[in-house]
């Protein structure tokens, strides 16, 4: 039994008792005037009526209380829409209902506030999603293997989708200087030759500061002193001119594995462009850019290492070839006098050998020098390179090699190098495996095309048995593909081998190479 129920019980008992007492008093006053049965009747009627009245009052009170309790319960469950009945009786209940109504009022206010807050959070979430989308987009560039320059362009393009910058640039450290690796200014023509240029002294100084602090720098009210302006006019450094209208800029360090590899710089022609939100976005994006750039740098290094490793291997082979040829020449030279005394005709043949060996050694030495100076290889004529190949092949003395050079083709450097490499590979195969007696190299060139043909009369091979890595065949095909050429290898057992390279391949035939 709760306290209130107990009180109600007391009230319901006390009320009839009091009414009974009142009746008794009235009966005492009216004594003797009314008949006794009338008095008793009146008393009974009073009692019954007051009992019923109290019961009715209590029931009503109970109902209000129950309703209030239910509402309070609902409020406690967070339902602010329930209406609190205004109770006039008794005074405690009135106070209770008023305080409950106040509570509901404050809850409604809280709810409105929450909705506002929610909207703010929604806005923030949208911004964050945009940030993350930008970061993910840039992150995805990680997966696509590409060179640094196009990567920088892509990153700056992605950044532009989320940040309305006037210009953005990527500076990268290259050995002991810092160069402009990427620049993007929407709507403004960028001179293409600024990429790769080292920074002017002014910007290099900024980079040094960044290097020291390793913290993003923001300048929201960039002012140029008269001397800066004058200096820029005098020096006319191309990279300084890219930033001359900037009124606010931010520079962020690109850090990979604790190493500062470069910086991201964003410029705007309005002052105070870099609000805390924009700073936050740039800070978030910078890590991704640093990762992507670091990744691309590693890839470039790996490629470079592979190229150098191959060049070293070729150089080692050539070095070995030169020393072998020179040894043979040395031995022949040491013999020729003795031979001459006994058989002058044999000595004449030996002198011819000696000449051939010397020519071969000279060619191998030239080829070796080309390997040590790769830029020289790109500038050499393909005909000259093939001539060395022929001389070195003849120098070994196992086959006759003839060169048909119809016209020196007009080839771009890399294409020339790859064609030479293909010829080297083919020659290597002939000398190692073919036992050929005669090799014919033909080079036909025009202004914009060329055909290289290497035929031998060796034992040939069955191409169906030599798929993939055998004899470096795949290597020849992939070299051709790299420069947009096509290699066709024709051979069958006992019938010699012919290697044909055609550059450039007509559209549509690309990537379809054959080993017929």
């Amino acid at each position, binding site marked *: 039994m709760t306290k209130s129920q107990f009180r109600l019980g007391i009230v319901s008992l006390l009320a009839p008792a009091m009414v009974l007492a009142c009746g008794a008093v009235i009966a005492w006053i009216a004594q003797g005037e009314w008949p006794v049965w009338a008095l008793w009747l009146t008393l009974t009627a009073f009692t019954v009526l007051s009992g019923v009245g109290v019961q009715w009052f209590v029931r009503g009170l109970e109902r209000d209380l129950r309703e209030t309790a239910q509402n309070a319960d609902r409020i406690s469950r967070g339902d602010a829409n329930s209406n609190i009945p205004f109770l006039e009786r008794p005074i405690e209940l009135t106070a209770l209902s008023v305080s409950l109504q106040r509570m509901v009022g404050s809850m409604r206010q809280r709810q409105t506030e929450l909705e506002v807050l929610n909207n703010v959070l929604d806005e923030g979430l949208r911004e964050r999603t945009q940030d993350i989308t930008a970061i993910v987009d840039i992150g995805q560039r990680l997966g696509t293997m590409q060179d640094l320059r196009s990567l920088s362009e892509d990153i700056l393009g992605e950044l532009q989708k989320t940040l309305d910058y006037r210009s953005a640039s990527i500076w990268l450290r290259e050995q002991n200087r810092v160069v402009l690796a990427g620049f993007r200014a929407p709507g403004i023509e960028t001179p293409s030759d600024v990429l790769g240029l080292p920074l002017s002294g002014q910007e290099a100084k900024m980079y040094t500061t960044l290097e020291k602090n390793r913290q993003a720098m923001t300048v929201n009210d960039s002012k140029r002193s008269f001397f800066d302006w004058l200096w820029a006019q005098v020096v006319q450094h191309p990279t300084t001119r890219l930033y001359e209208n900037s009124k606010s800029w931010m520079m962020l360090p690109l850090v990979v594995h604790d190493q500062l590899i470069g910086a991201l710089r964003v410029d705007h022609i309005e002052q105070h462009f870099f609000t805390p939100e924009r700073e936050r976005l740039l800070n978030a994006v910078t890590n991704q850019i640093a990762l992507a750039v670091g990744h691309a740098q590693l890839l470039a290094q790996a490629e470079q290492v592979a190229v150098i490793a191959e060049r070293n291997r070729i150089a080692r082979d050539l070095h*070995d070839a030169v*020393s*072998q*040829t020179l*040894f*043979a*020449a*040395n*031995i*022949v*030279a*040491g*013999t020729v006098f*003795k*031979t001459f005394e*006994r058989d002058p005709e*044999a000595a004449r043949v*030996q002198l011819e*050998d000696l000449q*051939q*060996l010397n020519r*071969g050694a000279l060619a191998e030495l030239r080829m070796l020098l080309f390997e040590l100076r790769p830029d020289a290889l790109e500038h050499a004529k393909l005909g000259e390179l093939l001539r060395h190949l022929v001389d070195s092949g003849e*120098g*070994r*003395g*196992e086959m006759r090699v003839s060169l048909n050079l119809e016209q020196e083709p007009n080839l771009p450097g890399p294409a020339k190098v790859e064609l030479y490499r293909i010829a080297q590979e083919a020659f290597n195969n002939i000398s*190692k495996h073919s036992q050929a007696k005669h090799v014919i190299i033909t080079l036909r060139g025009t202004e914009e095309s060329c055909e290289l043909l290497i035929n031998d009369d060796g034992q040939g091979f069955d191409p169906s048995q030599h798929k993939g890595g055998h004899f470096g065949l795949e290597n020849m095909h992939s070299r051709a593909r790299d420069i947009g050429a096509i290699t066709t290898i024709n051979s069958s057992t006992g019938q010699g081998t012919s290697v044909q390279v055609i550059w450039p391949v007509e559209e549509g035939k690309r990537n379809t190479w054959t080993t017929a």
Partner: protein
Amino acid sequence: MDNRLNPPTSSQTTQSVKILVVDDHPMIRRGIASLINASEGLECVAEAVDGIEALEVCARTQVDIVLMDMIMPRMDGASATQAIRARHPNVRVLILTSFYEQDQVQNAMRAGAMGYMLKTASADELVAAIRAAYAGQRTLAPEATEALVQATQPVGLNLTERERRILELLSEGLSNQDIADRLSITLATVKFHVTNILSKLDVSSRTEAVLLALKHRLVPSPSFR
């Protein structure tokens, strides 16, 4: 390939030394053959392009000396030398190559080569070496001798006192930082020493260095610690 069999002249039948030239470089075979044939008492009886062909020639032709290259297709010089020595104990093999790496020289000598000449030798040196081999004397090019001496030298002889101490601490499993603290030197100095130790022992990792050190007793073995 073409095995040029020179018909022995009447004066040579009894004394001349019969030589087989094995090399995959045609001009070298040709040059050496003419050198041999121009030298008194020597005769090139056959040429071969690799080890397998050399074995075939030895099986059907009487040969006194084989002049053998090391790196060749199909069968290299060391394997061919071993096979020839096993099947024809009277045939002596003289290595003539451009390589003088320790492994190459050791392999060749283990296979039973009589001498080791380099392709920097002059015609006269070569002829002298052939004659010496026929007489049962060894000729080793200075570079080959050096390689053999290097191979027999005990490991770690060239380590300094400091390097030995660091190697000892390495074998106790200490990190570079621990070693730096223990010897009161900087971390960079420890790294410098460790790099030198690795290069002197010709190993690529600390673990390898420790294993080698324990194997050659450069450091006290763990059971005595």
